């Protein structure tokens, strides 16, 4: 096997048993790697009856075949399993430095079950793998623990660490790599916490890997790195980060405001956008391993109530989740909130979205000061959010902490009063900071069809609707108008396949926009030694999309769950999308039909599964 190592680390924290073994090569060829391969492992070995926070629950960390390559955008990987936030399939993707280190150490992934008796850390040094005592780190913030790990073992050791939120089982707890790059979504920090696993640390003594066709790969690598670095998108991302065009998003109605109740706030766009971040707080640009784009930010905020020392800066999602979504246009506050979430180990999207829901509930009188331990939740009051609400959530302190630590859907279920109507989610996962009513109606399909719940990175629809995705080789050349349903179901069919490929290959969506379909195929073939053509690659993407649906079916999800909450579908009240209906039902029906998905069960028909070589999987559901 080339590209991949074919080896997986299996850890049972209950008895400390560790062994490395291989996965069948067919798994890699049919489900690619990353979240697709993790889904296959989970489908075959997962315990679907296990509570996601029980020792029996399985936590899977999985690389793609390109981990370790010196290629822009290739240094991501996935963490997957049953999400404690949603109770069904979840996966979370992250860049940084873990994927190549794990690859060089000799592994494609780690499968963790059990629960350690005391706080532990998994230490991987080439073929030496052991759980060590981490009692001294328990209760501490991620920045401090990451620093302590580096001091004890050396800077070259790559870390995954959870914070107090993960220890306290906050349902949207994150896992951070190098205290900067976040596996944010779906709450796997809580799964680590439930296993008494504070950190995973990896060190490889040699930095080499083999590819199937070194000559072809090297040519391709040079071509792609140049193309990626020189693209307009990369230049924009490099100079002003992922929030570079935030004010453009305000004009199109993509940026959510006050819990998705408004789609236009002109001054906010200028206040929060990437160029403002660059001018006011940027000290350095950063990158994931081997990436020439360098969209990461390092910031310092001085002379502000929200001052922070030099360190990781916020992405677009964090800026909006702790900016306009909460009725704030204070960029320093968004920087600070992001830093606090990183240190406590909480997903900034679900944190911001849950607080936004609570602010609206407070405004409506559905929750009161008495319900919130005397805390008032007011739009734009970032001091309370940062200094009171976030720490209380991470500690699950008081009624406020315990209510909001479960996420917006659970909290709305608890207080009732129809407050579920103004949650903004799909399948229990809070929606990210792109409003499908203004950003593009295709995004409504993406949110609803994504196996983990509302997710803008499940497939590249965001880029498809903004005209940044053209693949003429496979007939994918849509000129789409964002705020209509025209051609969206047809575009979504290819988009979900592409999304499954990039998330299984663990490739960054910013970088891979520049990779053509033939180049994708070439990359798989020259690195992993496959003999794929375009059709075979797209079929692999389709299989991954289907398999995650089968997993959710096993968890009891049906077609009715492929839905969005009313707030995300009602006509917008202002801005560019004002009054425009989203034909969600029509788009969903057509997408189902094109994908061969049963309109009641929400899974592909037996015939369709067999057509894609999933006959064995079909036997378990049909």
């Amino acid at each position: 096997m080339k590209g991949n190592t074919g080896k997986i680390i299996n850890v049972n924290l209950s008895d400390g048993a560790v062994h490395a073994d291989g996965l069948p090569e067919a798994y890699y060829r049919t489900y690619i790697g990353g979240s697709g391969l993790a889904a296959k492992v989970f489908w075959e070995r997962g315990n679907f009856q296990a509570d996601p926070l029980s020792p029996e629950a399985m936590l899977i960390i999985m690389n793609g075949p390109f981990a370790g390559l010196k290629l822009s955008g290739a240094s991501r990987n996935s963490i997957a399993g049953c999400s404690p936030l949603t109770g069904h399939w979840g996966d979370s993707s992250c860049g940084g430095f873990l994927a190549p280190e794990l690859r060089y150490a000799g592994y494609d992934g780690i499968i963790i079950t059990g629960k350690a008796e005391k706080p532990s850390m998994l230490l991987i040094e080439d073929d030496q793998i052991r759980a060590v005592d981490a009692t001294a780190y328990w209760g501490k913030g991620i920045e401090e623990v990451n620093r302590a790990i580096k001091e004890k073992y050396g800077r070259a050791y790559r870390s995954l660490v959870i914070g107090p939120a993960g220890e306290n089982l906050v349902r949207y707890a994150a896992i951070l790599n190098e205290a900067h790059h976040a596996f944010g979504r779906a709450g796997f920090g809580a799964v680590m916490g439930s296993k008494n696993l504070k950190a995973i640390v990896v060190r490889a003594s040699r930095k080499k890997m083999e590819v199937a066709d070194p000559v072809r790969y090297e040519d391709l690598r040079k071509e792609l790195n140049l193309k990626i670095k020189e693209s307009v998108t990369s230049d924009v991302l490099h100079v002003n980060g992922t929030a570079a065009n935030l004010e453009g998003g305000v004009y199109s109605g993509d940026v959510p405001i006050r819990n998705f109740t408004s789609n236009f706030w002109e001054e906010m766009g200028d206040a929060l956008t990437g160029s403002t971040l660059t001018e006011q707080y940027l000290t350095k640009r950063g990158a994931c391993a081997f990436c020439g784009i360098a969209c990461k930010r390092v910031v310092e905020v001085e002379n502000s109530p929200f001052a922070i020392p030099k360190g990781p800066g916020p992405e677009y999602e964090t800026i909006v989740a702790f900016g306009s979504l909460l009725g704030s246009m204070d960029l320093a506050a968004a920087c600070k909130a992001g830093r606090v979430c990183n240190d406590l180990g909480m997903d900034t999207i679900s944190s911001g979205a849950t607080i936004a829901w609570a602010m609206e509930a407070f405004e409506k009188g559905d929750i009161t000061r008495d319900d919130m331990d005397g805390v008032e939740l007011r739009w734009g009051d970032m001091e309370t959010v940062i200094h009171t609400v976030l720490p209380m959530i991470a500690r699950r302190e008081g009624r406020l902490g315990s209510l909001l630590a479960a996420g917006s859907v659970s909290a709305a279920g608890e207080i009732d009063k129809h407050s579920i109507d103004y949650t903004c989610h799909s399948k229990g996962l809070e929606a990210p900071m792109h409003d499908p009513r203004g950003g593009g109606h295709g995004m409504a399909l993406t949110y609803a069809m994504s196996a983990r719940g509302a997710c803008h990175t499940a497939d590249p629809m965001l880029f498809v609707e903004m005209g940044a995705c053209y693949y003429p080789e496979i007939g994918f050349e849509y000129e789409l108008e964002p705020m209509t349903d025209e051609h969206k179901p047809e575009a979504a069919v290819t988009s979900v396949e592409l999304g499954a490929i990039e998330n299984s290959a663990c490739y960054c969506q910013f970088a891979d926009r520049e990779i053509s379909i033939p180049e994708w195929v070439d990359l798989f073939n020259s690195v992993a030694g496959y003999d794929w053509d375009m059709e075979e690659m797209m079929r692999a993407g389709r299989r991954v999309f289907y398999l995650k649906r089968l997993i959710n079916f096993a968890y009891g999800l049906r077609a009715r769950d492929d839905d969005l909450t009313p707030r995300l579908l009602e006509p917008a009240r202002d801005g560019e999308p004002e009054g425009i209906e989203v034909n969600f039902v029509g788009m969903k029906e057509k997408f189902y039909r094109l994908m061969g998905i049963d309109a009641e069960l929400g899974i592909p028909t037996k015939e369709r599964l067999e057509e894609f070589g999933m006959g064995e999987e079909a036997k378990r559901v049909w």
Partner: protein
Amino acid sequence: MKITVRPVGVVRRFAEDQTIVVRAGLNSRGLIRKLGIPHELKMISFVNGTRVDLNEELKDGDEVRLVTLLTGG
């Protein structure tokens, strides 16, 4: 005719706020090309605060906001 151009967000990297003299009959698509904004960017245009089709002719005194749909994060 004279029009005022107000690029928004990322578009400001490629064009500045300016009032320029252009030929009669120019539309937003032609203006975008004239300003040298990269063709990779999908653009939308707001004339005097209202979204217009890129092929709609501009008029003397119009204020044109040029927005790209590029987004991220």
